[in-house]
């Protein structure tokens, strides 16, 4: 999905695999089905006179059965792939994880770090460590998303939702974070930066 990383973050990798899986079968299915439609439409077009014998029966359980069987097999395989990717949305039980609070408000994000520090519109995380965000909202329904990591969770007043990710290498990603639920006139500008720092830089920063 986003190739600006040195090493692909795990959530992105899982997402990419799953997305391309769906894309492959989805494209294949639509190409096959649409071609069938076009093929029959052309093959059986009316040619003035004559043409092949017209059928008069309406039943077609054979085709129905085949359709159902093929659909069930592709769709179960898809669902299997999805379930196999649930690691993306299950919060890992990692004692070494960094917990950061996220509070959405009209219109911005406040990030609260383990040492109590807060930053506005800047999510700073250590590289190569599991980050768990505890997301809530001060006022209305927002949605916290980082597209390049394929993570997103709603920010709902009175409720805390969690998401996790891990970025292997340091880097600064401007406007990587966006709000994905209409939250008023400032919605379009509700962005934040993602800063990934090395473990040592993180430790220093936490200590300061």
């Amino acid at each position: 999905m986003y190739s600006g990383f040195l090493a692909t973050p795990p959530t992105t990798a899982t997402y990419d695999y799953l997305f391309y899986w769906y894309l492959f079968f989805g494209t294949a299915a639509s190409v096959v089905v649409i071609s069938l439609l076009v093929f029959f439409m052309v093959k059986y077009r009316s040619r003035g006179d004559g043409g092949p014998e017209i059928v008069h029966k309406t039943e077609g359980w054979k085709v129905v059965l085949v359709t159902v069987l093929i659909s069930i097999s592709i769709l179960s395989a898809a669902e299997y792939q999805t379930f196999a990717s649930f690691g993306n949305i299950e919060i890992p039980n990692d004692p070494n994880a960094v917990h950061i609070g996220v509070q959405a408000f009209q219109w911005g994000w406040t990030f609260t770090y383990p040492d109590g520090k807060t930053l506005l519109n800047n999510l700073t995380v250590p590289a190569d460590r599991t980050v768990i965000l505890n997301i809530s909202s001060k006022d209305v329904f927002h949605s916290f998303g980082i597209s390049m990591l394929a993570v997103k969770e709603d920010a709902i007043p009175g409720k805390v939702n969690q998401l996790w990710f891990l970025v292997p290498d340091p880097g600064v990603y401007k406007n990587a974070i966006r709000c994905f639920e209409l939250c008023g006139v400032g919605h379009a500008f509700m962005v934040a930066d993602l800063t990934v720092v090395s473990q040592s830089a993180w430790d220093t920063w936490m200590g300061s």
Partner: protein
Amino acid sequence: MTDTWLKRWLYTTNHKDVGILYFFTSLYFGFVGAILALLMRAQLAAPGSNLLSAAYYNQALTMHGLIMIFWFLSPVALGLANYFVPLQIGAKDLAFPRINAMSYWIYLAGGILAVLSFFVPGGTANAGWTTYQPLATLALGTGPTLAYLGMVLLAASVTLGSVNFMVSIIWLRATGMTLSRLPMFTWFMLFTIIAMLFAFPTLIAAFVLASTDRILGTVFFTSTSIQPSILWDNLFWFFGHPEVYIVLLPGFGIIANILPAFTGRPLAAKNAILISTGLVVIPLSFGVWMHHMFLTGIPVSLQGAFSIATIAISIPFDVITLSFIESLVRGRVKFATPMLFALGGVILFIIGGITGVFLSSPVLDRAFRGSYFVVAHFHYVMVGAAIFGIIAGIYYWLPRMTGRMYNEKLGKWHFAISFIGFNVLYFPMNLLSDMPRRIFTYPNQGDWATLNAMASVGAFIFSGAQILLAANLLYTWFRGPIAPANPWGSPDLEWTSHVEGIAPIAESGAAPPTGGWIGQLSGPPQGHETQSRGGAVGHYGHLSSRPIQISIGALVFLIGAAFYPSISGVAGLVVGAGAVVYAFWGWAKDDIEGKFVVPPEDVGDRWPFASVPKLKLGIWVFLSSEVVLFGSFLGAYIFIRAASAQWPAAGSIHEIPLGTFNTLVLVTSGLTMFLALQSIRKGDRRGLLTWMGVTFVLGAVFMGVKVSEWFNLGGSGFVLADPAMSLASSAYYIIVGLHGAHVTAGLLVMAYLMKKTSMGTYTKDSHEAIENFGLYWAFVDIVWCFVFPLFYLL
């Protein structure tokens, strides 16, 4: 433009006239929605543009969504259904013509509220068509209130309409029109109506709660202690998912209906299509709503379950799509305009449906939710499949409505440009899954600018193409060559008749116009021809001024409500309520005086409801939607109770002994109503009058106690203004009040029935109205049996 012309269109109850009213009104709203869309697309054509401010963009966005779905897409289908379902089943009209007219006028009144809302200071609703809370409620002002009240009216109109269609399709089929012969469009309208019947009451509940928050100061969606966002999500999406099929199925019904006319062979796997839609899609559609809530923090296991349910619902659609394609095989495909739109619709549905499978995966949804990918998906389905299907229907039936042929060449151009424009408009959005939707502007980032520019160009191509549709409509109407009686050689009843005993439409004259609107626009109204068996009954017998009066009353009342508590608001409430009461009184009076009589329907095919009278069936259907309505309110209440950390203890607010007494009173009134029924079943009119009198008194006592309770509660501080009591009192006053309103309506009907009884109307063999009222009253009793323990004892 004579007096009679106006009178005809304002007072008509004829299904064709009402259909035409629906048709043109919905096209008007479609035009409004399209203008709003073009404003948005103009704003988004380039990054950082300043054409629309964020505030205006959000309003355009919200009203575009609401208007397109609720005032354009469903109503245009209902318009065609109004016109053609009775013709397809060989009925003289819908089951309840006056209620049908009322549905239309209420729909229009709702639309007027929605349009008015743009013009009040502060503008209209701006929280998206999904109206997420608490954003929507925190946006103060009269504009959003008007729009939301418009939604309540719209939903009420749809509920009435669905009762009407349901009874008509079940009960008014001509002899020989067995279910196995029912045309596909009628079948699909039946499925649509069933989904509407159970989905829209939840929408009513949601918007009533949202509106009382705005008007009366209840705190359903502003209270911070109960996660109102989640309450709204559940209410809205329980409605919202069935709604996507509600907008889709009429288009599919049209495609299924017209394919055979252009392939020369029967629809393939017709029964499989019916089973897929009726027995799989419709029931399942009420069980997948949480796929809209994957990100709200629901447990992963629940996400998995809803993902499976969602993917399962795509299987019947595979069956339908493949059967449509199989319907081409060994046929002779003719590419007339309706067929092009039908096939185009199927192709676009395939693309939209497959992107839907992507969205069913909670893992992938982490990328797509709230992004342009979703916008692409639902436009492919709603505009691509549904609207292309409906346009196919418009071309297909235009000759039937106008008696004239459309221009084929223009139609083909219309299709070609629409199809290309559509894909230029929406395909790029599939690639914009990292761009949030509902943003009024965006930075020049990645490929956003290119893709958005493309979409905007496509928007103007696609919308421009619709001018060709308008041109073709006008051309057909005024200039089109006279159409043959059955230009498509269709076997369906609206074109001809293969059912024994039903006269073909062409019978009335060699050279049609076969009686559409065209022949009647000038000159005084003539009796409509009818296609039903037996002698033609002119429908001009039943004009009624009541439906429009009721709707005007409702409009004034709700405008008043939106401006409450200002003086003009109160005045509006009083005048509007007065007008509604006056109109209903007039409605009853018309009945008593025999001024409005619908010719009785002949015996037809009514399986499986042959032994149920028409009105009773209507009451059953209506009450089943009422069950959903109360279920939604009580469900909301239970949600609130479960989410609240504190709640006033049982007995501390509501006096349990008094409540118990009142419960006994109401239950007793149920018994006395039963005795009243028993009396008239034996032919004992005095017994009926006596027992009904007792029922009335008991009902009045119940209401009296209620009113005194409310006075005491208000005096003792159980008020919205007290933060400790605000949630409990919001729920109590609104939900118990709703039940009280039902009891009061029952009392009014009882008064009317007693008057008719004393006039000697009811006899042993003819007392349907009493039976029906008995059902209603039993329902009101039963609801109380849920309300009482929930509010008093727990």
